[in-house]
């Protein structure tokens, strides 16, 4: 092609979402993460139809090793490990997602306010953030749970209360950065209101790193819930993977499977989360996109 036809170089259709999609699916690790996630979600939704059963029911001899009768064996009470894992998937997902939603709401709101308004608002909110940051999360949640009655709602809220600080810092940093961009000043020079600048101008531009952080937070929330249940501080009525490991802990020498399989389920779920998060990060990171 000659230069004459290329005078107007920069006219090409632009579909940012399609490009994002393409970048994401070109990343093998991210696709693997997505597959893991689909697996977990399918298990949570359809698992019990394929392999029905009450996870609390004692269906076999205690500590039957994995085999023909029970694919993944039974625990010290004779409860089927596979049923437990299938049941645990929905508990884990529910808690992971709802805790993340709460975390994101608290963290993003505080970060956005601090970053946008600056000055004393920022000062105050950041002091609060730092305060929550020095409280060791597990101990703080233990205190909350011991003072109030443990329930699934308390656990979700407690996880959010101890994990919003990172999100707040990130949102604040992004807002601080974008607030100084000239297009935000331009928006103010045109008479736009603060709320509209925050919601319509800065937030969409701050979203990529926040989306990644929120995706990764699902993983940390799941791990946190697992640790709580492992310690026996979870909702006693929720049969989660952490609970399975915690309750069989005494029998580690006699029935390794009751600990290994649920743990592996957590591992794969969280691994899926981080792979998807990394894939999103790469796809959303404009620095990498240039090359």
């Amino acid at each position, binding site marked *: 092609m000659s230069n004459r036809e290329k005078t107007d170089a*920069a006219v*090409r259709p*632009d579909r940012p979402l399609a490009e994002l999609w393409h970048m994401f699916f070109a990343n093998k690790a991210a696709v693997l993460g997505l597959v893991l996630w689909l697996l977990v979600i399918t298990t949570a939704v359809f698992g019990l139809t394929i392999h029905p059963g009450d996870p609390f029911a004692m269906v076999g001899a205690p500590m039957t090793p994995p085999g023909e009768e029970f694919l993944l064996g039974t625990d010290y009470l004779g409860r089927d490990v596979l049923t437990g894992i299938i049941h645990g998937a929905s508990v884990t997902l529910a808690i992971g997602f709802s805790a993340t939603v709460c975390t994101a709401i608290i963290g993003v709101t505080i970060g956005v306010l601090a970053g946008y308004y600056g000055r004393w608002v920022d000062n105050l909110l950041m002091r609060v953030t730092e305060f929550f940051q020095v409280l060791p999360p597990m101990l703080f949640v233990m205190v909350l749970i011991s003072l109030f009655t443990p329930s699934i709602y308390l656990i979700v809220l407690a996880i959010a209360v101890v994990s919003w600080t990172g999100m707040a810092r990130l949102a604040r940093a992004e807002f601080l950065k974008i607030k100084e961009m000239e297009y935000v000043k331009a*928006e103010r*020079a*045109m*008479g736009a209101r603060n709320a509209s600048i925050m919601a319509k101008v800065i937030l969409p531009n701050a979203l990529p790193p926040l989306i990644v952080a929120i995706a990764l937070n699902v993983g940390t929330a799941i791990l946190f819930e697992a640790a709580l249940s492992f310690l026996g501080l979870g909702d006693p009525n929720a049969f989660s993977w952490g609970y399975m490991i915690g309750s069989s802990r005494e029998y580690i020498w006699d029935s390794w499977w009751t600990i290994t399989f649920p743990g592996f389920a957590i591992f794969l779920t969280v691994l899926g989360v981080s792979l998807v998060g990394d894939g999103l990060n790469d796809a959303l990171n404009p620095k990498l996109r240039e090359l």
Partner: protein
Amino acid sequence: MNSEVSLKVDNLRTYFKVRRPHLFAEQPTVYAVDGVSFEIASGRTLGLVGESGCGKSTTAFSVLRLVEPTSGSVVLKGTDICRLNENDLRNYRRHMQIIFQDPYSSMNPRTTAGEIIRTPLKILKIGTPEEQHERVEELLSLVGLRPEQKKLYPHQFSGGQRQRICVARALAPNPDFIVCDEPVSALDVAIQSQILNLLARLQREFGLTYLFISHDMAVVQHICDEIAVMYLGRIVEKADRRSLFLDVKHPYTKALLSAVPSMDKEAKRSSTALKGDVPSPMDPPSGCHFHTRCPFAEKRCSMEIPELREVHPNHWVACHLV
């Protein structure tokens, strides 16, 4: 001054409080703009020139109240902008617009050129959506772009084209007054002239009043009718273009001019290169701010602040020795 005054800035001060390094430190204050006064006649251009940190951009932002001035008044067409409440100010913004320095960061990367230009119309609720879209196309061709380019995103334009979009956006609400904050500094030399010519043409066509901020003496000389030279938050010399360059009074202006490299072989540099750096605006020197670098400084320069005096008709200088 023979024509009507469009903008009158009187004794404008903008101080910033900076975060203290520790509890026991004194509150550091940046005296960014320290008593600046000027006026611009309708349809004309005032150039505000100076080195980085001299407060020229803060002056521009304070004039538009994008930064809250500490004291002083800014009267645009009889309205004191500093006394408007937030709502009135927002409505009043249709009369005053701004073009920024960096064409890369001055547009929201997630909106198309058309939407960018339409934004002020939407915010200020000017016209129906159909009228707004028509206006966008009209503006695009006005600044030398094609109407169909409204569908493109900022990253698909070159720096010069982006700056054209910014000009179109500033023109959208039909303002009287536009602040141009270093509009060509970030552009390649070959593109600079395109934008400068565009700004000049638009001024002729629409009778716009410009406050033109720049660090480049040659650009300022080219585009401005009047020029004010700033040093550490104060105006040190102010005159119309011709009298300023024909008869430079302030030692700082002299030094600034002699530092500009030139392609002319005759204009070999007279070696009045300034010594040292610009002092910090957090701790400006006493008296005349320039005395620490001035080759002619006397004792009283470090004690008394020189007033901006009219030494010739419409030629103002702040120096004890003039």
